[in-house]
């Protein structure tokens, strides 16, 4: 206990030392400052950097299999020269195709949109926005990142296995994932996948435990729960969902590892491979699906909730209006959190489970429309008659709202167990989840990066490049995923290597080409963002202390990478974070959280 006080007093001394010494760093080497850093702002940037690398890999893989789907009859000798082990005679191997689809899903869901989205913004924003020196445990925080690195190394190296990476889909359903002889990727590739995911869960839990205890224990004076910005609320609920759901993935994976290596039959029953009956008996593959989707469904909320928080905060700042329905936003987050644990079996309507269970899960699934709709209405009403600044963060937020509506509406279709008979495992599902959690979450992330870039690097990102990036990505995303709804309604199944054999789907050849071209264009457009990002770090326009004129505490802390965040004492909070355009006669249209209430405001009943 004394140590914790001594650490804290050290931080205080350190911060004061910096304030007087003009930013002089004592005994900090490059390695301790940028690599094995314990500072939450640096760890946030580390998560972002690794996440960007993963996004390039994950997006690149999708381009490769989109080439196969768009031009199944053509050959691509150039691609064979680069990816020689995945191509034969200029064409993608079917086994490689399944590996690429699996790895694309795994990388995007876990490594980019879970680890990197939460990791970046929780680390960057939580201590700054609640007015803390750092996380509750900076060491655990750093460990969380380094476990993510370990998971990344294992997962990335599996791409280079001679037998190929895991190929059972990101949902790794047994028996495909449980029997090494089932497919080339089910051997070493699957083993690497499982090891990487266990490391990944450790990383997520270390981070999540830390975020929750930081938010609940380390808020500065005056920062009550209902004065927290919505980003912090969203991260809090995200972390709670992660804490409750990821351990169940561990139990699921432990049983799978036993089935793979030690001859148990938790998920396996009466299987014949190559004319030989295997000695497994009595297991249930549906049990795996229940355990997996108990994580798998909350997982999609782990992806989307931080994006929702970012959008709520950025929209309020950029439209110079208080967020509409602050408490409604919090309670709808709570509603989504609770409901996320009650809907998992809607992924399994046709797995052979009891149809009466299906109707129950349909009911809960459709209930999610209520908190989601509350959030959508509140974002739109926040924009309504606002003094909107049209800049890149705003555009990405509006894009997010648009995508969330388009993707959310199809969720109502898929949530119905009867409609799901026709639509399950078709491109309709692919379209739905890519729009609502994939692209939408990316838009939230982009909005956050463009908005908090000055906080991270003290410079602004280039607006023109931002506009171009937004326009291509927004239009491109719809061109990719909108036609997939029609493919799905026509019954085109997902995960197929080629549709050449099917007369019924021949008419969609051109549509598939359009989708593939759009996918390649959107992928290339992300390099505009990357160039903008890297260029702006070094050459961007210098940012002022509070470039967006926002109320939250991260803009109160001095810019730069000050260890301990505030040079002197921590700020005291007097008001909620959304006092924008409050007084018509005031010179500025914002009142930071550190400004005490006026006499008139005190007399008002809040």
């Amino acid at each position, binding site marked *: 206990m004394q140590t914790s006080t001594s650490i*804290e007093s050290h931080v205080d001394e350190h911060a004061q030392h910096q304030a007087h010494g003009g930013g002089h760093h004592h005994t900090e080497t490059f390695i301790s400052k940028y690599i094995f850093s314990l500072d939450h702002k640096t760890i946030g940037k580390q998560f972002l950097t690794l996440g960007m690398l993963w996004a390039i890999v994950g997006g690149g893989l999708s381009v490769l299999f989109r080439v196969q789907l768009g031009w199944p009859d053509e050959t691509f000798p150039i691609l064979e020269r680069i990816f020689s082990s995945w191509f034969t005679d200029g064409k993608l191997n079917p086994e490689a195709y399944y590996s690429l689809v699996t790895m694309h899903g795994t990388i995007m869901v876990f490594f980019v949109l879970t680890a990197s989205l939460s990791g970046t913004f929780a680390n960057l924003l939580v201590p700054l926005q609640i007015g803390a020196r750092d996380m509750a445990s900076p060491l655990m925080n750093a460990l969380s990142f380094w476990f993510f690195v370990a998971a990344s190394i294992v997962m990335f190296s599996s791409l280079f296995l001679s037998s190929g990476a895991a190929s059972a889909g990101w949902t790794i359903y047994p028996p495909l994932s449980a029997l090494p002889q089932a497919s080339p990727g089910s051997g070493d590739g699957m083993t690497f996948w499982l090891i990487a995911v266990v490391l990944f869960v450790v990383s997520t839990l270390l981070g999540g435990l830390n975020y929750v205890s930081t938010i609940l224990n380390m808020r500065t004076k005056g920062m009550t729960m209902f004065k927290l910005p919505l980003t912090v609320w969203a991260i809090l609920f995200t972390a709670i969902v992660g804490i409750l759901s990821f351990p169940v993935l561990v139990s699921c994976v432990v049983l799978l590892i036993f089935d793979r290596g030690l001859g148990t039959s938790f998920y396996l029953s009466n299987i014949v491979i190559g004319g030989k009956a295997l000695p497994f008996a009595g297991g249930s593959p549906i049990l795996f699906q229940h355990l997996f989707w108990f994580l798998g469904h909350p997982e999609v909320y782990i992806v989307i909730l931080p994006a929702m928080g970012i959008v709520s905060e950025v929209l309020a700042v950029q439209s110079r209006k208080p967020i509409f329905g602050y408490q409604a936003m919090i309670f709808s987050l709570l509603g989504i959190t609770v409901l996320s644990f009650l809907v998992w079996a809607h992924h399994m309507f046709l797995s052979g489970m009891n149809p009466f269970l299906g109707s129950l899960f349909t009911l809960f699934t459709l209930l999610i429309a209520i908190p989601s709709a509350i959030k959508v209405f509140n974002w739109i009403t926040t924009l309504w008659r606002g003094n909107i600044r049209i800049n890149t963060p705003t555009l990405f937020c509006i894009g997010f709202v648009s995508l969330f509506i388009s993707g959310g509406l199809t969720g109502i279709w898929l949530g119905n167990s009867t409609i799901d008979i026709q639509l399950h495992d078709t491109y309709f599902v692919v379209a739905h989840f890519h729009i609502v959690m994939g692209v939408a979450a990316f838009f939230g992330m982009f909005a956050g990066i463009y908005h908090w870039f000055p906080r991270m690097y003290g410079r602004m990102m280039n607006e023109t490049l931002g506009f171009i990036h937004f326009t291509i990505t927004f239009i491109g995303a719809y061109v990719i995923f909108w036609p997939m709804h029609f493919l799905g309604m026509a019954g085109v199944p997902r995960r197929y290597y080629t549709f050449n054999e099917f007369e019924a789907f021949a008419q969609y050849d051109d549509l598939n080409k359009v989708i593939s071209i759009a996918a390649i264009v959107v992928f290339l457009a992300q390099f505009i963002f990357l160039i903008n990002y890297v260029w702006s770090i070094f050459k961007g326009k210098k940012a002022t202390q509070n470039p967006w004129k926002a109320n939250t505490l991260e803009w109160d802390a001095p810019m730069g990478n000050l260890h301990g965040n505030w040079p002197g004492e921590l700020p005291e909070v007097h008001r909620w974070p959304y006092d924008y355009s409050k007084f018509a006669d005031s010179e500025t249209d914002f009142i930071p959280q550190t400004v005490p209430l006026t006499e008139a405001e005190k007399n008002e009943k809040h």
Partner: protein
Amino acid sequence: MSSTAIKYKNNTQGAHRFTMYLFIVTTSMIFAGFTSAFIVQKGRGGAWTSFGIPKIFILSTILIITSSIFLQIAHIANKRGNMKLTTIGLFLTLVLGSLFCVCQIEGWKQLNDLGVYLSFNPNPAGPYFLVITFVHALHVSVAVLFLTIAFFHSLFLLKKPTDSNIVHKLESNEKGLLAIRTDLLTLFWHFMGILWLYLYIFLSFNL
């Protein structure tokens, strides 16, 4: 920086305990997953056949509960500055905790002799019992590792001469660290005991 800022201390100490509570919740969720899988599988019937749990698991139950009492004594002694009692308490917990793991291994061996084995067992009840108890024992053995660290830490403080000023200062820091260690360890160890009780009762009733 705001001109109205006043000094406010962050509560990192409470955060440590709180983080441990959260960790306990995550660990509970692992076993919630296992026991629900157990119930689902049992409900499917099939080749599921119950078996008697060997008596040695009663001994391990007694061991882990007694060890919890010793650790609580050590924790309270440490708070009161009684380093000798702390060290003895930690040592006894360490011994009993290790014995618990030995008992579990012995129990699995006895089950193996009774025909309750892991690989290619037509009766799914056996593998469930073995995997659930194994994952619990894995958690206990990691906690034993941390107990060992705390024990040597306490022993180190007990043996160290306290005549120089610098050592005094160092020691007060070290004592603080030991206090955090025993505090968090005690929480987790009690949880391990309660979890084992739950698993034992759950498995006895369902097998």
